[in-house]
């Protein structure tokens, strides 16, 4: 079985080789005084088309057309290769026409979102493994509701058994909003536990106004806060992993459409240049 490191080295070697070969072809085209933009443009478009086909391949998992991981490897490395092609195609200049600028913006958007996707798909899974329970994204609201119900039961108990004002006040002001839904999106994304500790500290600070019975309930509430925070952590990270594609894919289709338009325009006006 090929190791992941070996696979990475192999793919980099292939992409470097392809870049060198591409550079050679490009130079030969330049020397023969042909329009290099055509070869770089068509190559770029065809590779982008092949990259976009990955989404179609995902819809056909039962077809024997190589594993999805092989496609992804191609997607990643060919994606990097397109950046080199793109630079050659725009001749290392900032496009100035409206259509060309839009195209360049779209390409950079797709490329950039792809890089972000690669980075998060390599880093976030490790984060998810190290904190909280493994949970299926679609089931998170169910667990949130259960936690909220458990909290309400605890607070009701505190009110019935101890007439606890501190817990009631904390519930109304801080716990109710916290348990209402996913919270602290950005804090979780930057790996900060500040909101969690702030809430726990607040709860602990109220301990001085509580009886031992109330403190026992407060300890259970603290455990719920920790669980809820872990659940939010999973929600935030899984949401990022899922929703980045909602940027990458629409941009890809827009890019392909604009590329087609660009091609039509080029061929429409080629005779007059």
């Amino acid at each position, binding site marked *: 079985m090929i190791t992941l490191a070996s696979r990475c080295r192999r793919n980099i070697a292939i992409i470097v080789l392809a870049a060198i070969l591409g550079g050679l072809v490009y130079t030969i085209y330049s020397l023969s005084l042909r329009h290099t933009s055509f070869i770089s443009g068509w190559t770029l478009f065809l590779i982008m088309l092949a990259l976009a086909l990955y989404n179609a391949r995902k819809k056909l*998992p039962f077809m024997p057309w190589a594993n999805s991981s092989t496609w992804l490897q191609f997607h990643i490395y060919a994606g990097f290769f397109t950046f080199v092609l793109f630079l050659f195609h725009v001749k290392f200049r900032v496009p100035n026409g409206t259509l060309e600028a839009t195209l360049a913006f779209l390409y950079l958007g797709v490329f950039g979102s792809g890089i972000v996707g690669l980075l998060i798909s390599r880093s976030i899974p490790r984060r998810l493994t190290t904190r909280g329970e493994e949970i299926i994204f679609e089931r998170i609201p169910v667990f949130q509701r259960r936690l909220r119900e458990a909290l309400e039961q605890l607070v009701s108990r505190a009110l019935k058994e101890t007439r606890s004002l501190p817990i009631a006040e904390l519930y109304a002001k801080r716990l109710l909003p916290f348990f209402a839904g996913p919270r602290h999106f950005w804090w979780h994304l930057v790996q900060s536990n500040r909101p969690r500790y702030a809430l726990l500290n607040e709860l602990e600070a109220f301990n001085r106004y509580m009886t031992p019975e109330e403190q026992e309930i407060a300890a259970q509430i603290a455990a719920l806060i920790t669980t809820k925070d872990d659940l939010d952590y999973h929600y935030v990270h899984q949401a990022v*992993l899922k929703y980045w594609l909602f940027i990458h894919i629409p941009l890809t289709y827009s890019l392909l459409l604009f590329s087609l338009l660009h091609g039509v325009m080029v061929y429409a006006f080629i005779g007059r240049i």
Partner: protein
Amino acid sequence: MKAIPRPQRWDNPFDPDMTEADVDRILSMSPFREMNLDDFPASTPLGGILRNDTRIRRYQNGDIIVREGDYGNSAFFIMSGSVRVVLDGLPTSMLGRLEPKRKGFFRAFAQLWRNHKEPEVRDTTRYVAHSGVRARDDEGRDDRIFLQDVPGVLDAHNTARMEAGAFFGEIAALGRVERTATVFAEGEAELLEIRWQGLRGIRRRDRKLKEHIDALYRKNALITHLRETPMFRHLSEEELTEVANQTVFETYGDFDWYTSYKTMAEESAANRLAKEPIIAEEGHYPNGVILIRSGFARLSQRFGHGHRTISYLGKGQYYGFDEIIHNWRQRSEGETLPVWNERGNQPVPLQYTLRAVGYANVLIVPTPIIEKFVLDPDRENPRIPLALLPPPIVVAESAEEDVQQELTRLEINEDMLELLVENRFINGTATMMINLDRCTRCDDCVRACAVAHDGNSRFIRHGPKVGNYMVANACMHCADPVCMIGCPTGAIHREVHGQVVINDATCIGCSTCANSCPYHNIHMVEIRGKDGNFILDQNTNAPIMKATKCDLCIDQLGGPACQRACPHDALRRVDMQDGLKSLADWINR
């Protein structure tokens, strides 16, 4: 709503063309003639078993009856004629093996739009068309494989003849193990094929048949098993017979381990370990080589106040050989007792404790027999090939060091090993492992599974975790598939390549397999008609249930869709039967 009759046991007899006259004829033959009909309960009389669980098959000269390597769900009784057993194996090309039927390219592609929107939709017309399905197996209409050059095969291979009145295939049928030899008809032969449910029923009620099968096991399967063991391969037939005569076979644990497994799972690790029967204990004298015939055994070593698992053994593996060899090497010429030397060169007792995990059928070949047939008479030049001799045992300074040595050899961490053995995931041949450090939780695997199964996912991306690995709730296609025990119709069975699959057409929804599966990997579902409505029992209006599970995408072109759909190489179907090599390779890639 649509209603159909609730499926019943024996709704689908093995052969619908079996007649009462056939049953009477079988009952007139020995050993059926000698069986006491009163020993059988009214619900499953002998006549009923013969009528519903058997079929008479007629073979021409050279017809292959069973093939080596196939998984047997039935045994055979020779009614007339004779058959030949190939003892040294036929080449695969001669066995005429066929790939299981897979969807063609266009049928596979059509799943994209032909899958139903409602879950668990079934074509109920298949349920009433069993005779049509079975008809392909009827005499003269099936694709029977035959040997073209029978005399040539007889010349080139070591074969044994079996005559009328003999049974064969019963060990494979009852032990849920592969056929160990190919059997073909010699001339015209008439055989009674008994599916394993029927054989089990008869064996349970008839003492003579039980003794007969046990004796056959000693005579046939034991020799075969010993012959397959590397250390005995150099022995002649006579020597092998002598080894077999001296070999003790014992069963540790409970065949029905899966019934107690679920309750045991809630107990502490120490309690669970204590309930595993000890086959051989650390520190004891090695009385013999212990060969695992079937089931699994845990190798553990004392650590603190408990035992630490260091490995496990499955079918074909053995224990005690290293210690016996080590001691034999240390023994001085002409002396009968080991001589104690400096550390590392001392005779050693058993290094680990061997326990049955669930159950284990073991063969114990006594130490003197090993010394006589495998090692002696020449110490410098033992009879066993030198390559098979293990290196001397180096006694570790501490248990910790020893465990680390073993774990380093396995290239797997201790927690992982404990999880796999404790939960008996070692039973799997296609255990779904997920590397959570690479899994983006995209659920592409789940969607791929659903698309390949008419919109119904056959696994849940959830399960026990150790470190960054998860064992997902997906059928593991066990080496010891306990789910197959008790299926009244044989709907759950092994395919050619070992996949455990359910024939939806013959499943009666009794839940036996789902209840037996210790891993909760078989699910009962309420089925719907093509119109999306639930299908009901016409008598009770209760929904008709079917058992469902992962089938490793047996009918798909590319193999398991889940593994192929994972973009990040995070999911793998791992075979645990190779001593964790596949798992270690994958983990350490």
